């Protein structure tokens, strides 16, 4: 059966060159980077080479990169780290309603520690409004954390403008760039941010490794304590094979970015066009300020998990904001924050493109999806009601 992976927003296949680099690291340079001997020094060199490659991907200096166990830890380290370090200065933090749970839940946990959290709303396209940010900033605001691009609907925020305002106000700016670093140009100095999270497994590197960019001079408490690794900001023996893999992935992404971005954008636009041509299928998110890999549509009258299962039987892998796929009771907080009603949010479908996708994949998807939608709608008690309303008898 044809298999078409369209869930690159969830995770990506590991690039063969990345696997090769990791195997070489594990086979030939297994030392502990903290060790004095040659095994250790070889490992240390690999660690620092990877750091340079990751730094280059986001326009940072190597010494501003702290490796973590992924995007989640990077977000938590940034948010807890700055909030606690700056507590004497203020206890107010601003975030947005469409952040990843790694950011939102960290902020909620800080609330229990006595911090005040403002969650900015977004418009129907998933955009934070600058006026809302300006109105929310207070003298005691120490940290603003707003994601670069949303993982579900792909909306890209104007981080440069947001950061300018935040910095003018004297607060610290963090952005979760897990969905952007390696996919669109990201430069910490252009953006102006103080902290930026990235993750390896979204860009053809291994899972379980990420990084936090920390602008020189930014005060931050560590989340965990132990050895002196990573400038005492993140202790523990470094995940060397993972970091080497991340470094290689960053190198490849830096190299291929312009070409891949334009290829993805074309595929994305074809997919959006094809899907939104189906009746009562609507694009979610922004039409232009959007990740090149992201397609997200709402398909009325059907539920996301059953759609995914049927796609899966046809070899197509996607994801949905349906509650059934998240293990929670509510559908995607992102879609709800954009004002999309519950029942429509349940019927959302996210297809996220990657390096391995071809035009033929899009053809296949655009052939299969309408059939499945029809099939599920024929089973749906909501659809017949609607048909009845519009006076089109089903049988």
């Amino acid at each position: 059966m044809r298999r078409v992976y369209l869930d690159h927003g969830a995770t990506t296949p590991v690039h063969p060159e990345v696997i090769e680099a990791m195997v070489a690291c594990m086979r030939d340079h297994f030392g502990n980077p903290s060790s004095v001997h040659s095994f250790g020094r070889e490992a240390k060199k690999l660690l620092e080479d990877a750091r340079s490659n990751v730094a280059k991907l986001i326009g940072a200096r190597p010494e501003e990169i702290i490796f973590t166990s992924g995007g989640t830890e990077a977000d938590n380290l940034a948010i807890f780290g700055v909030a606690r370090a700056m507590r004497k200065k203020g206890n107010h933090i601003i975030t947005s309603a469409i952040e990843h749970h790694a950011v939102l839940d960290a902020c909620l946990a800080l609330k229990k520690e006595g911090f005040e959290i403002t969650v900015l709303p977004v418009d129907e396209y998933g955009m934070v409004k600058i006026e809302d940010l300006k109105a929310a900033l207070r003298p005691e605001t120490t940290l603003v954390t707003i994601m670069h691009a949303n993982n579900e609907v792909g909306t890209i925020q104007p981080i440069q403008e947001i950061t300018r305002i935040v910095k003018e106000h004297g607060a610290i700016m963090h952005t979760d760039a897990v969905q952007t670093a390696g996919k669109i140009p990201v430069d910490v100095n252009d953006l102006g941010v103080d902290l930026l999270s990235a993750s390896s497994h979204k860009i053809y590197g291994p899972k379980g490794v990420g990084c936090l960019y920390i602008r020189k001079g930014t005060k931050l408490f560590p989340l965990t304590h132990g050895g002196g690794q990573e400038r005492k900001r993140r202790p523990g023996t470094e995940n060397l094979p993972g970091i080497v893999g991340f470094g290689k992935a960053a190198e490849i992404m830096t190299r291929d970015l312009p070409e891949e971005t334009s290829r993805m954008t074309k595929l994305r636009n074809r997919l959006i066009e094809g899907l939104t041509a189906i009746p009562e299928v609507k694009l979610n998110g922004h039409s232009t300020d959007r990740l090149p890999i992201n397609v997200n549509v709402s398909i009325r009258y059907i539920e996301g998990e059953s759609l995914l299962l049927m796609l899966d039987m046809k070899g197509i892998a996607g994801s949905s904001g349906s509650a059934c796929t998240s293990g929670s009771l509510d559908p995607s907080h992102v879609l709800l924050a954009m004002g999309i009603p519950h029942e429509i949010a349940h019927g959302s479908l996210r297809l996220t493109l990657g390096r391995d996708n071809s035009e033929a994949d899009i053809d296949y998807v655009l052939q299969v999806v309408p059939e499945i939608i029809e099939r599920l709608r024929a089973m749906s008690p909501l659809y017949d009601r609607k048909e009845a309303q519009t006076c089109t008898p089903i049988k």
Partner: protein
Amino acid sequence: MYTDKVMDHFMNPRNVGEIEKPSGVGEVGNPTCGDIMRIYIDVEDDIIKDVKFKTFGCGAAIATSSICTELVIGKSIDEALKLTNEAVAEALDGLPPQKMHCSNLAADALHKAIADYKAKREDSKE
């Protein structure tokens, strides 16, 4: 995640559709929570002759609806009333724990359809 039996009933659901003049109709769930099941029954001499369903929901919701119709066709309404959501899940060789409460409502919809049938019968008797 799902058993083979769930996947079979999901991919090849039995008795999808409506009954034009049903003896009873039962619906549970609502679109906000993500699952709606509507079950139509055709009853003759207190025996369920036919059942059809329409379901908006996840794989478990569709599969439980499907197997539920199979389990009760030909049964008396008294027997059908003994059918529990648990028994439906069991007939599918089990459901993932998180699906047991939110998507396993077919027996409830069936019971509602039977109640509807009984209520209509009372009405026509009066």
